[in-house]
C-alpha cells in the first residue's frame, strides 16, 4: 500500500507487542522457577503436614551409579508410593554441580568431593555437603575376550596410559593378539569423568594421561568399544561386564599377586582399584530424603547394589 507511514502510529502499534513480549518473558521466568520449587518440597518434606502429599526427590549424578539408582527408585516406589525419586545421570561432576546450585536433593558421586568443591558448596548454599557411602565399586580393566592377557601390574597400566607412552605394543607385555595387531588401542573416558579422575589418581599418581586415547563418553561405551576391538584395553565400572569382554587381574606392584574385582577383594581392599559410591546431601539428610537414604542402606537397598554388579556395604557398618 502507498499509505504514508507516520512515526507516531508506528509506535502505537509497537507498544502492545512490547507488552506481549514482556508478558511472555515473565511467564517463562516464572515457569523455569518451578522445578526448583518442586525440589524444595522434597527437602522440606520432613514437615508433618506433607505426609499425604506427593513428594519428589531429585537424585542426579554419577554415570557409574545411574543404573543402580534407577533400580532403587523403582523399588522404593513399592515401599513408599507417595515418594517419587527422579534419577538423572550425566556424571559425578554434574551431580556435585547440581548440588551446589541447589538443583538436586541428593548428588550421586563415584568419587569423593574435592575440598574446593565443598568450599564452593558452602559458599553457595551456606550448608556443608554430607557424604553417605552407599556401596563400593571397582574399576575393572577390560580386554577383548580373545585377548590372552590374564594379569597386569599397576606400573604397566601406568606405562600404557601415562603421558610418556612407555608401552604401546602388546608384545611389550609378552602377549600376542589373535589376528596379529600388535598396537594397543587405549580406551579411556572423557576428561571430566569421575572414573577418569579416579584412574588418574590411583594408577598415574595424578600425572597426566597420554594423548591419542579413545575418550569415550560413558562407562558402557568403553566396554562396547573393547568388545568390538581385539587389540583394545579399557577401564570402567565392574558392573558393565559382558560376555564379549573379560577382566584382567591387577597387582599393586610388579611381582605381587594379582586380583580380579570381586566382592571379597573390594571389601578387603586387595583389589587396587576399588572405590566407594557416595551420596551427597546439603547438611545431614532430613525427612523423606533421610528415609530414602536409610532404605538404600538397608538390606533391601543393598540387595540391588549386588544385583547391579557392585559391592554392597558390609552390614553393621
Amino acid at each position, binding site marked *: 500500500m502507498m499509505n504514508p507511514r507516520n512515526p507516531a502510529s508506528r509506535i502505537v502499534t509497537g507498544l502492545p507487542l512490547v507488552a*506481549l513480549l514482556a508478558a*511472555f518473558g515473565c511467564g517463562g521466568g516464572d515457569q523455569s522457577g518451578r522445578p526448583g520449587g518442586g525440589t524444595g518440597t522434597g527437602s522440606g518434606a520432613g514437615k508433618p503436614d506433607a505426609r499425604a502429599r506427593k513428594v519428589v526427590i531429585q537424585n542426579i549424578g554419577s554415570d557409574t551409579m545411574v543404573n543402580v539408582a534407577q533400580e532403587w527408585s523403582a523399588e522404593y516406589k513399592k515401599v513408599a508410593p507417595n515418594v517419587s525419586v527422579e534419577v538423572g545421570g550425566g556424571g559425578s*561432576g554434574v551431580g556435585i554441580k547440581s548440588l551446589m546450585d541447589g538443583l538436586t536433593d541428593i548428588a550421586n558421586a563415584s568419587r569423593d568431593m574435592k575440598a574446593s568443591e565443598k568450599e564452593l558448596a558452602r559458599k553457595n548454599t551456606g550448608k556443608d555437603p554430607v557424604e553417605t557411602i552407599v556401596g563400593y565399586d571397582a574399576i575393572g580393566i577390560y580386554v577383548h575376550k580373545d585377548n590372552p592377557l590374564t594379569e597386569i601390574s599397576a606400573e604397566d597400566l601406568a606405562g600404557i596410559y601415562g603421558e610418556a607412552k612407555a608401552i604401546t605394543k602388546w608384545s611389550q607385555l609378552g602377549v600376542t593378539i589373535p589376528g596379529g595387531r600388535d*598396537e594397543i588401542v587405549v580406551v579411556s573416558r*572423557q*576428561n*571430566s569423568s569421575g572414573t577418569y579422575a579416579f584412574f588418574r589418581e590411583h594408577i598415574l599418581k*595424578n600425572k597426566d594421561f597420554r*594423548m591419542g586415547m579413545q575418550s569415550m563418553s560413558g562407562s558402557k561405551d568403553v566396554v562396547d*568399544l573393547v568388545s568390538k576391538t581385539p587389540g583394545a584395553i579399557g577401564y570402567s565400572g565392574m558392573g558393565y561386564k559382558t560376555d564379549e569382554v573379560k577382566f584382567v587381574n591387577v597387582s599393586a606392584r610388579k611381582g605381587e599377586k594379582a586380583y580380579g574385582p570381586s566382592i571379597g577383594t573390594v571389601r578387603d581392599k586387595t583389589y587396587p582399584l576399588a572405590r566407594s559410591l557416595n551420596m551427597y546431601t546439603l547438611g545431614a539428610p532430613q525427612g523423606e530424603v533421610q528415609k530414602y537414604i536409610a532404605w538404600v542402606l538397608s538390606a533391601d537397598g543393598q540387595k540391588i547394589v549386588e544385583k547391579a554388579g557392585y559391592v554392597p556395604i558390609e552390614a553393621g557398618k
Partner: protein
Amino acid sequence: MISLLKIMLLLALVAGVLYLMYLIYRYCERTMVTLIHICGVSAIVFVFGIFFFIFREGAPFLLKDFDFGGFFLSDKWYPTSEENPRFGILALVAGTGSVTVLAMLFAVPFGLGTAVFISEFCGRKTKEALKILVEFLAAVPSVVWGFIGMMVMNPLIIKLADAPVGLNVLNAGIVVGLMAVPVIVSIAEDAIRAVPDEYRAAAEALGATRWQVVRKVIFPAAKSGLLAAVLLGVGRAVGETMAVLMATGQSINIPFDGNAPFFHPLQSVQTLTATIAAELGEAPSGGHHYQALFTLGIVLFAITFAINLVADLIVKGIRKGK
C-alpha cells in the same frame, strides 16, 4: 502474591492478544509491516546475541590466561590436569579439518553428480522419486548417523582396512559426507534448474552432446550456486557434533605427519564440536575448563564466519565478473 502476579500477567497477555487482533483488523497493513520488520531485525539480534554470550563466557580465559602459542600451536589438551593444565587446540582443529576434508571428498562429487543427474539426465518420474529420497536422507537425525558409524562401519573398517580401531577419520568422513550430500544436492539442483533452457537449446543446436552441455554451459552458468552448495556442505561438516562424537573415536591426535602418505585416515581424532559436547556438561561453570570450552566456541564461530564470508565474496566476485 505470586498467584496474583500470575493472574495479572495472564490478563495482560489476554489483553495484549486481543489488542493485537484488533490492531491487525484495524491497521492490517501497518501491523504486518511492523511484524515483518521485527522478524527481519531478529536475525541480526540473534547473531549478535549468540556472539555476545559465547564471548562473555570465554572472555576471562581470553583476557587473563590466554597464551597464543600454547593455545593455537600446541596439541596438548589437558584442561582438567591436576599438575599442569594445558589448553592446546591444534589437535582439535586438525580433527575438525581432517574430517571435513574427507567428508567433502565424498560429498562434493557425489552431491554434484546427483544434482546433475536429477536435473539433466533422468526422466520426470525418476526425478520426483530421487528428490523425495534425497530429502528423506536429509531428515535422518544425526544421532542415527552416529549410530551407523559406531555399529555398522566400525567393525566393517576393522575387517576391510585392517585398522586397529574402526572409529576414525575415515568412518566420520564417510558418515559426515553422507550427511552433507542432501544439502549439496538440493542447493546445487536449484542452481542448475535456474539456468535458462535457452542456453541448453542453443548448445544442443550447435551439436553439443549432453555431457558437453553440462560441462561447458550448465556448470559455468550455475557456478556461484554450485559453490554456495559446496560451502554450505562444508559448513554442515564443520558444525556436525553428535555423529562425529560417536564416529571419530574421540582421540586427541593429529592425523598428519611427515611419513608418507602424510594423512592417516585410519587414525582416531577429536573435533572442536565434539570436545565441547563431551566436556561442557561436567565442567564447573566459571572455571578454567568451562571458559576454555567457550573459547573453543569462539574459534568455531570464527571458522564458520570465515567460510560464509569467503562464500559471499566469491559469489559476489563471480557476479561482478559477468
